[in-house]
Structures are given as C-alpha cells and as structure tokens.
C-alpha cells in the first residue's frame, strides 16, 4: 500500500522558515498541499519574494512574516496575522534557532543569553500561542526542533546543548498538557545537517564528524523535513511526546 500524505486544507506555520531546515520544511509541507506561513528576521521584501515563489511552485497560499521570535509582541503580531489570513492553524514547526560554538570557559554571557532567548524563549512563545489557536479546533501538531547535542552533549557547545535540551523538556511537558485538547507535541533531534549553522566548521572538522555517522554522510535539510512531514500528518496521529533522532545513526 502506498500512502500519499495530503495536507490540503491545512495551515502550517514554520519559524525560521526562510532558509535551511525551516525552508525545507516550508517547501515539503507546501508540496503536500498545505498552505504555509513562515517567519524570519530577513527583510519583508525578501520574505514576500520567497512566499510568492513557493505559492506559485506548489499552488498553495503562502505568506512570509518578519518576526524576531525573542520579542513577545512580534510573535503575537505574527500569530494574529496568521489567524486573520487563514483563520486556522494545524501545524507549527518550531524551528528558529541560533548556534554559537565556544568552549565553556570562552562562552560569553551575551552568547548564552542570545541562544536562550532565541532557542528557548522564542520556541516557548510560539508553542504557547500556537497551542491557543489549535485549542480552538481541538487539534494540531507541534514539532519542536531540538538537536542531537541536546540529548548527548558536545564539546564546545555547552550553552547550545543546554538550549536544545530545554526543548526536550518543553516537548514532553507540553505533550502531556495539550494531549487532552487533541494537540500533539513532538521533537526532532537532527544530527549533523548541512545548513548555514555549519559555516564555522572547516573541511577537516566536517570529515571528523562524518566518520562518526554510521550512514557515512552529512544529513540534508530534506532528511529532517521528511520526518517533520510525517509528524505534521495524520500518519502520526497517535504519537506525542516523542523525540525522533534524524542523525544517520550517530547514536547507535
């Protein structure tokens, strides 16, 4: 039996959706027929171009919203925009994030605050408002982007790992709280994925990581987006509070 995932009539919202894993999620959800809204801190004109491109390519409605996920008022405005435009919310991909690597002794307070503000506070604000919109229809799927380092840690990424571990706690707690309202909350923990976040890695460092991946390759944003699609769809309708590693076997 083959099952084509069809998200027609659904509305998905992706934070940090202009590039990297977020962009792959936007395109994958649109390809499955979902209308899509996404936010980013890029200029509104750029977001409008991306949204227009996606709407045309996949024949869905798509809007880009400029929003800094750290700012409660901006997040609220973004959700109001989504609600006014589409009148519903079925899927949240809580993806916006930042990674700054540094040895513990060299990690600055500003760097810690920035990662906690964006990766944790931003994710919680979006989780909160998305769940309120989803509660109106008594259904929805929230997918939080954590990281393999949130599960097993990584030298030189103490603050980043802490922020991504926080997402795991938020995921299981929110899953428990929101399940009676028909809202599922799961997390994806990507391994080493080829995005802008890896710009700081030189070829030698990348080679070293690839050697630790059982599948012998760096992951692509599409690898993560495919799992996000599954979690967004009704194929995962009895699955909540789970963390799915998308890491090519780094943990086995």
């Amino acid at each position, binding site marked *: 039996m083959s099952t084509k995932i069809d998200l027609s009539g659904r509305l998905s919202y992706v934070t940090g959706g202009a590039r990297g894993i977020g962009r792959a999620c936007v395109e994958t959800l649109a390809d499955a027929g979902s209308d899509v809204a996404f936010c980013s801190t890029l200029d509104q004109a750029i977001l409008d171009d991306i949204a227009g491109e996606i709407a045309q390519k996949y024949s869905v409605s798509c809007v880009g919203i400029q929003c800094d996920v750290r700012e409660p008022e901006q997040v*609220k405005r973004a*959700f*109001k925009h989504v*609600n006014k435009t589409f009148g519903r919310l079925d899927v949240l991909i809580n993806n916006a994030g930042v990674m700054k690597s540094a040895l513990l002794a060299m990690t600055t307070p500003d760097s810690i605050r920035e990662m906690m503000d964006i990766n944790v506070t931003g994710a919680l604000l979006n989780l*909160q*408002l998305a769940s*309120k919109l989803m*509660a*109106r229809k008594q259904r929805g799927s929230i997918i939080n982007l954590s990281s393999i380092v949130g599960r097993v840690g990584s030298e030189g990424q103490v603050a980043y790992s802490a922020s991504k571990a926080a997402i795991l706690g938020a995921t299981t707690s929110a899953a428990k709280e929101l399940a*009676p*309202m028909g809202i599922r909350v799961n997390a994806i923990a990507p391994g080493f994925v080829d995005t802008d976040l890896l710009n700081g890695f030189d070829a030698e460092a990348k080679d070293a990581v690839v050697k630790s991946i059982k599948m012998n390759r760096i992951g692509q944003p599409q690898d993560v987006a495919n799992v996000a699609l599954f979690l967004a769809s009704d194929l995962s309708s009895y699955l909540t509070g789970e963390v799915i590693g998308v890491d090519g076997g780094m943990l086995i």
Partner: protein
Amino acid sequence: MEFDENKLRTVFADALGIPEADVIPSLEYNTIPQWDSLAHMRLVAEIEDAFDIMIDSDDLIDMSSFAISIDIVRKYVNED
C-alpha cells in the same frame, strides 16, 4: 466587532457546560467543578474564537470571574 455581554455569557455556558442562568457576574474560577484549569483553557479558546481576539497570558490568569472576564474581553474587542 462590538462587545456583547450576552454573547460572552453564551460562550461561558457552552464552554463550561452549565446553564446560561448560572453565568452571573459573581461566578468564579475553581468554585464549581466545571470551571477547573483545563476548562479555563477551553473557555479562553472559545472566547478568542467567538470574539476573534488573542488574550495575553497575564489577562488569561486574571480572568478569575465572569465579571472580570467581561472587562477583559471588552478591552480586547475595543482595541481591535
């Protein structure tokens, strides 16, 4: 949209599963079994949907009676 107290009363009655006649200004959160924390979240979702507003978490916590809810919802409807 104009604020309509009777509409809010209907939303309360539907969300909490109680007769409209029981939705009086002195009705308070956690004083009847039907208005517990889970019902409060459902109630807020129904109010937001009915009045097309988004209530801040501070106000959501303050909505501890029907009387206070009237003031809070009216504020959001008027500012939209």
